[in-house]
């Protein structure tokens, strides 16, 4: 403890020099904090999404769908047919619920409001598949789906925007693309699978959707795996059934939650990589700065080293003294860098619209990192100091 105070004392004795020396460390540690904050923030969001949507959610998507980059390969079927869905349900016992989804951006009218958002044509089972919580009313039934009833379920946000806040839209009629539908239920907003997906959504029976928008073809099917079955193994089963129907081309159609969130992860990974680069570069440059200033310090205090050795200091205690000083210098830089990093993380979160999370573990990692850098880069100067001959050191003026 006393040694720490003495080390601090020596650092504070040259405030400007210490400050300039540690700038590299400050920037480096700030970058470390930002990297960890982005990583943890992102992980938390993804975990929340997985938790909300269920880790057992799978999507069967064709090329040109929302999850792919739009490439249509020659000879590839461009739709999934409903028979295939029935076959899957029959052949894969692990499937808990399955529903096709047709979607299009439509105009919704209610009283004086006229808004555009997405409408989804689904089976009744879609409620189970996407874990939709019915806030009021109900989801449409198998009967309604089979008999093409014009009923509509709105997401909470959609209901709110159409009904001028608070006014009850349940059991009222709304107009979608010129046709009248009865609002039979309101469900919670889904967490978006992509950042750009809006919370306003409407759900109508698949049969109705197909009838009103006959040109839409089915390219997305969602399903969930029963909790008694392993998700990874079930993906394989679904894939093999699809391959029996569609052949090799269906190879990459089935995607689990981790695949669905891949795009989002990739962006975060890129950002993280860049900042990690900045962090390591500035920590390296900062470390060299520390080494340089420690060599200067040792040179300046050669006489002191001689005196200490003359009165009985061992090489080891001299080594410890200068190592501690280098480490303390870096830890001070690390503390400033941590504060700076927390501020930077908030700025990054604002500017890039990505979630960040500052945790104690990030701060501990950052401080451990800075003391590690301090230790490593003071090793040579401290070793040099400890090996000085006491006679020559004493003679130094």
């Amino acid at each position: 403890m006393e040694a720490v105070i003495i080390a601090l004392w020596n650092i504070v004795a040259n405030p400007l020099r210490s400050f300039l020396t540690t700038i590299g460390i400050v920037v480096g540690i700030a970058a470390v904090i930002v990297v960890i904050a982005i990583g943890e923030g992102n992980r938390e969001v993804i975990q929340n999404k997985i938790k909300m949507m269920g880790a057992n959610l799978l999507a069967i998507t064709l090329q040109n769908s929302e999850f792919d980059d739009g490439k249509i390969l020659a000879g590839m079927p461009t739709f999934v047919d409903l028979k295939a869905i029935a076959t899957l349900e029959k052949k894969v016992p692990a499937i808990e619920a399955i529903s096709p989804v047709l979607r299009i951006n439509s105009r919704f009218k209610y009283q004086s409001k006229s808004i555009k958002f997405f409408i989804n044509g689904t089976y009744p089972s879609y409620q189970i598949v996407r874990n939709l919580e019915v806030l009021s009313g109900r989801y449409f039934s198998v009967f309604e789906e089979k008999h093409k009833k014009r009923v509509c379920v709105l997401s909470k946000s959609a209901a709110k925007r159409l009904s001028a806040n608070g006014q009850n839209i349940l059991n009222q009629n709304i107009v979608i693309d010129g046709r009248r539908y009865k609002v039979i239920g309101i469900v919670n907003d889904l967490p978006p699978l992509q950042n750009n997906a809006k919370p306003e959504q409407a759900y109508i029976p698949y049969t109705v959707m197909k009838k009103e928008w006959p040109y839409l073809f089915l390219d997305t099917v969602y399903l969930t795996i029963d909790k008694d079955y392993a998700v990874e193994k079930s993906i394989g089963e679904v894939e093999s059934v699809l391959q029996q129907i569609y052949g090799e081309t269906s190879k990459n159609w089935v995607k689990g939650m981790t695949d669905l969130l891949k795009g989002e992860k990739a962006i975060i990974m890129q950002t993280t990589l860049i900042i990690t680069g900045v962090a390591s570069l500035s920590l390296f440059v900062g470390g060299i700065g520390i080494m340089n200033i420690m060599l200067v310090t040792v040179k300046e205090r050669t006489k002191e080293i001689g005196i200490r050795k003359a009165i009985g200091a061992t090489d080891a205690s001299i080594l410890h003294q200068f190592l501690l000083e280098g480490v303390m210098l870096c830890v001070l830089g690390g503390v400033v860098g941590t504060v700076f990093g927390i501020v930077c993380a908030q700025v990054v979160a604002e500017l890039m619209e990505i979630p960040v999370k500052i945790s104690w573990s990030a701060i501990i990692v950052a401080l451990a990192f800075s003391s590690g850098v301090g230790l490593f880069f003071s090793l040579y100067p401290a070793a040099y100091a400890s090996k000085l001959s006491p006679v020559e050191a004493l003679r130094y003026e």
Partner: protein
Amino acid sequence: MIKLENISKVYPPKLHALEDASLSISQGEFVAIMGKSGSGKSTLMNIIGFLDKPTTGHMTFLSQDVKALTQTELANLRLREIGFVFQNFNLLPRLNAWRNVALPMAYAKLPRQKRKENAFQLLEQVGLIDRASHLPNKLSGGERQRVAIARALANDPNIIIADEPTGNLDSKTGKNIMDMFCQLHQKGKTLIIVTHDASIASYAQRVVTVHDGKIIHDSQHGDQDD
């Protein structure tokens, strides 16, 4: 206690700072090592004080072979057995008087409270108790040298080695310091004073004269020159 046999010290490439020096110092002796600057007296002092190792020759301390000791063991000998007093005091400028005195005790791993107590006691002995919290640059030369003496006594060593202890002091203060050394000698400390000043050497019981790296005279044995 300390025995040097045919000790030489060569600084590369071929500066013979000390040649074939033999010397034996017993417990409780008061020895002055005399010589002009560059005579090799400082080299001799450094070797006796375990600050430097001889190039050739045999040296024992309390019958143990000094050449065989590691750097750490030498440091421990300096810590426990030797107290140094230098011409230019060599106090650490950023530590106040009592912390300077306490420093060797820190290296000896004494508990903190004990260090402070001992330091104040030693400062009282040298008459500086009221200056305990002063930084060295706020003390006069004589006061600084008294702090240095207190520091040399910190771990109660057997041997005090003083290198021109009065060199930077006026004659009155110098005499004061020398009286202090005489008292230490009376208390049983072995004293080795390195000086070029015959009047300082005259305080000692035994005078060893060094010239051109050789011991040319030892008052204990008579003239070795012929």
